Structure formats: C-alpha cells, structure tokens
C-alpha cells in the first residue's frame, strides 16, 4: 500500500487545450479518493498518468516518496480497472486472473492460493473456466476487479468501473466495492462523473473541471462548504440553487428571500441547498409559483419559478402543493453560501 502524490501535473494532448493543468493532489495511504467531474475534465488522464500509460508534460508523481513519473507501467505496481473491463477475451476467467502473476513470473505453486483467495472474495468460484463472453456485465466487472486485486498492488485505479451497469447492479456493486476497500485497505483512486457514487463511497473527493482542481476534501466538506459555485452546483442531487446578485440586490421577489441585512457586499451569487429552503403559505416569504412537483416517496422536489429564476425545494412528502399554485418560500441566514465574482466562496 502506498500514498499517491501528484505535484503540479500538466498534460496537453496534440498541442491543443490542456487536458490537465498544474494538478496537485495528495492521496493518503489506504484512502478511498474519488476524482469527480463532468465529461472531458481530465479524470481519465489523471489515471493514465498515474498508471504510466501516458507521460505528463510537466509535474511529478510519487508513490510513497518514490518518484515514479517516468517509470514504465509494469514497474509501478499499481493496478487499474478499466471502464470497459478490458478482460482478455481469449482467456478464461482463471487465466485472466493469473495473467498478472504469470507476467510477473510468480511460480505456479504460489499463484494458486492467491487466485483462490481472490475468487472467494469476489464470489467467482463457479466461473473460473468460463470465457469473458460467457459472463454478465456484473460478473465481468468482478473479474476485472479480481485481476487487479490478485497481485496485491500498492494502489488501485478505477476508471468509471460501474458506468456500464444498470442502476440496480450499480447500487449493489457500489456497496460491494466499499466493503472490499474496507477489507483490503489498499489506496484507491476512483474516477466517476456520478456524484452519488462519489458521496457514498469516498473518504475524500477531488472535483475537477476542465483540467483544474476545483476542490478537494471529505464529502461533508464539499457538501457543507463548497469552495466554488461550480462545486456547489455539482455536488448534491440536485445541486445547490444559485441566485445571481442582480436578482436580489434590486429587491423584488428574491430580495424578500434574501433580505438586505443578510447580504454580503462582494457577493456575485448566493447559494442555498434545496433542503435548506422551506415552503410557507402564500403571502409569507418570497412569492413564487409551483412549476413542477417530483415525488420520490419519502420526500419530493418542488420546482418554483419567480422573476425569471428557477428554484428547487426539497419538501417532506406530506402536504405537497400542486402545479401552478402560488406559494411562499423562505430560508435562514445561516443556510446561505456566498460566492464572489471569480466563483470562489467568500470567506
């Protein structure tokens, strides 16, 4: 096991826009760190650099304290699980699992116990003699994990390993992966664009945007104190409501929601989470109109509109308003987040 440290990593493909700009990130030994961000933000690039499949244009990668920036992939002792599994199609499950050991010249007698151990851990026992084409998506995913586990690497890299699975299976494997991490305790760097995966599994989350690191911290830190308005809007399901300053500075509806006494001078945007908003009877709070009600059983999302802005409120499933109904909305001073003109959180 090892800590992974990235120091000012930059990567430009084909002399175009940078895929990665001066990314610095420390991943503690044994931590489950998630790289989160929209498509094309450079998540896979980070993994490929750490794995050694691509070389950075500048910057340094360390495993523990050792500089591995220019080391070939096979010498880094990290394992990767690919989005499309990348199982060797002509080899059986057993041969797939043995492949990393065989390549590292582990003698056959020592391969067997390792293989059986992994097969048991991932419940692959009955599948050992099948070819990858004879497996279901979830089984293939487990074999891919097994192949990464079997050589006991110092760190795991996982590139959207669940994105090809249906919702039920994804939820199942999500908890399975968390349990697996608790059992083996290996450092994991997990890439996803799904913020629910990130929030549920991560010890720490790093949010990337267009090759830049937006924020790094625990899920709670990102949720409670997003460093930028981008993180605020990205984390949470749905993300934070963001109201531009001009909508409340002139008074009007949003001026009622955010009274003058609460306002921060340099703020460009005010943010409030859907769960920090309260629906109140029409005539109280800020006056808005219900445009949509999404019920989820235990609670519901109520979409409001007023003065050309949209707002989402999470409400208990009880007495829900109906579409088109006028209603009031209110919040507290302490629930508000303030972001400056550069999108950064005001201290």
């Amino acid at each position, binding site marked *: 096991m090892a800590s992974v440290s990235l120091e000012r990593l930059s990567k430009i493909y084909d002399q175009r826009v940078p895929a990665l700009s001066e990314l610095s990130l420390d991943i503690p030994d044994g931590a489950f760190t998630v790289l989160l961000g929209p498509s094309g933000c450079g998540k896979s690039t980070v993994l*490929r650099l750490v*794995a*050694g*499949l691509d070389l950075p244009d500048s910057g340094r990668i360390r495993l523990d304290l050792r500089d591995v920036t220019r080391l*070939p*992939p*096979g010498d880094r002792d*990290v*394992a*990767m699980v*690919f*989005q*499309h599994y*990348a199982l*060797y*199609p*002509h080899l059986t499950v057993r041969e797939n699992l043995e*492949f*990393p050991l065989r*390549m*590292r010249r582990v003698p056959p007698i020592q391969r067997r116990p390792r293989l059986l151990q992994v097969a048991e851990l991932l419940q692959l026992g009955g599948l050992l003699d099948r070819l990858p084409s004879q497996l279901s998506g979830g089984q293939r995913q487990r074999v891919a994990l097994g*192949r990464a586990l079997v*050589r006991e690497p110092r760190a795991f890299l996982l590139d959207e390993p669940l994105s090809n699975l249906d919702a039920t299976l994804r939820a199942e494997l999500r908890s399975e992966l968390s349990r697996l991490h608790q059992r083996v305790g290996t450092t994991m760097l997990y890439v996803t664009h799904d913020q629910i995966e990130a929030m549920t599994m991560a010890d720490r989350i790093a949010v990337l945007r267009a090759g830049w690191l937006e924020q790094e911290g625990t899920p709670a830190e990102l949720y409670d104190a997003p460093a930028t308005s981008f993180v605020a809007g990205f984390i949470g399901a749905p993300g934070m409501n963001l109201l531009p300053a001009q909508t409340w500075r002139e008074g009007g509806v949003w001026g009622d929601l955010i009274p003058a006494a609460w306002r921060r001078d340099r703020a460009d945007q005010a943010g409030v989470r859907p769960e920090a908003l309260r629906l109140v009877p029409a005539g109280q709070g800020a006056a808005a109109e219900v445009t949509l009600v999404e019920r989820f059983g235990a609670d519901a999302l109520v979409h409001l509109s007023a003065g050309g802005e949209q707002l989402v409120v999470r409400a208990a499933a009880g007495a829900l308003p109906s579409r088109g109904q006028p209603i009031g909305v209110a919040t507290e001073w302490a629930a508000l987040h303030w972001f400056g003109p550069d999108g950064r959180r005001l201290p």
Partner: protein
Amino acid sequence: MRLKRLLGWLLAALVSALMLAPFLVMLSTSLMEEFAVFREPVPLWPAHPQWQNYREALTALPFGRFFLNALVFSGLVVVGQVVTAATAGYAFARLRFPGRRPLFAVTLGLLMVPAVVLLIPRFLLIHALGWVDSVPGLVSTELVSVWGIFLVRQACQAVPRELEDAARLDGAGEWAVFAEVALPALRPALATLALFGFIDSWKNYLWPLIATPSLDHRTVEVGVGTLHGLYGSSWPHQMAAAVTALVPLLLVFLVLQRYFIRGIQWTGYR
C-alpha cells in the same frame, strides 16, 4: 418483396452457373477419349469416362514430387507471410517510431506495382545469391505480403487499446503485449491471410516457372504447364492434371470459407 427475393436468387444462380461452367467443362474433358474433344458437336459428358487419363497424366511427369514441392512452397510462403504481416501490421498500427507514416505510404504504394514488373528484378536477385532452382530461391521473394500487412493493420485497429494497456499494467513487456494479447485477437485476420497466401502461391505459375528451370523444384501449376509442352495435343490428359491440381484449393476453400469472406469485408480489396 418475395418477387424481389426470387429474382435475387435467380440472378445468383445464373452467375454461379456461369462461374461453374468452365470447371465442369474441364472435368468432362478430362474424362474423354483423346480425340473426342474434336468431334462435332462436343458431347456434354463422355459416354465412357476414361478414368485412366488421370493415371496416365499424373505419371507422365513426376507429379508426386510436384505436389510435394507445391506444398512446401505454399506452406513456407504462408508461414512467412503470416509472420511478417503480423509483426509489420501491428507495428504500423500500434508502435510509434520515426517515419511511420511515410513508410506505410510507401508500403501501400507497392500494391500498385504489378507483380509482373518485379519478375525480372526478383530473378536477378536470387541469381546473384546463387539460389536459382532451389527452395530458398523459390520462397524468399514471396515472404512478405503487402496486402497482408494492410489487413493486419486494419484488424489491429479494431482491437481495443484498453486491452493492451491492461496488459502493460499487469506487467507484460512490449513483446508479451504483442504475443499474448494482440496476436490472439488477430487470429481471424491471420487465418484469412494464410488462406489467401496459400491459394495465391498454389496457383502461382510465372514465378516458379522462372525460378526453377529444372524439374526438381517445380510446382504443380508449372507441372501442368510442362505437360502442355510435352503432350500439347491431348486435352483430356492436360485437363486431368489441371483438375487434380485444383483439388487442394477446393478443400482449403470449403473448410475456410468464412475467412475468405472476412478478408474481403475487412479490406474492401481483393
């Protein structure tokens, strides 16, 4: 809709008949009496098939030896072409080296040079090496197939890169990545290449004719041609030899049909 299907079938049947006709004529001629060929009208099928034509034709010259030679020739050519195409095609598809693009362009450009043009230079080459009338002389200039390189390169591009990346992370060196991961994925392409290589060299006439002046290293096709020189007047005997020379090709084709079709699909060329 059904009428269209029917017309399609009819057309296919017609074309097949046109293609098959010469072979049937060959077969029937091979069983005729020597001068029955010149009778008017020529019978479609001989009343008394002359099976001994085959024995006579095949013993007039050392055909056993010719078959063996052809087998050795085609076999070595197939092995050579598979090895060179697999390595070169993979290199062009996957490895980064200086001059890769221009080199590939030149290689492809060779497809446009008619083989006949290269006949004399090739002969001069093996002559200079003292290899005329020997197996190395016969085989050495046939070991690389440009079409095969192109085929393998195309096939490589259909292999997901993730697979090779995974192997690198699993500790495979570049050679192991090629041999253990890429090569198995290229098997269908290589089978296709082997099939075409075999057919091409089996029915190759000009080159073996020039490269092997004596009877010792002649192949079947050349043998059939030689028979024509010796027994120019007897068509049935020549046809008997020609039919026999065709049998291995038919067998190979029947067994490996699907690879034949795949080769055309992959490269759009043949």
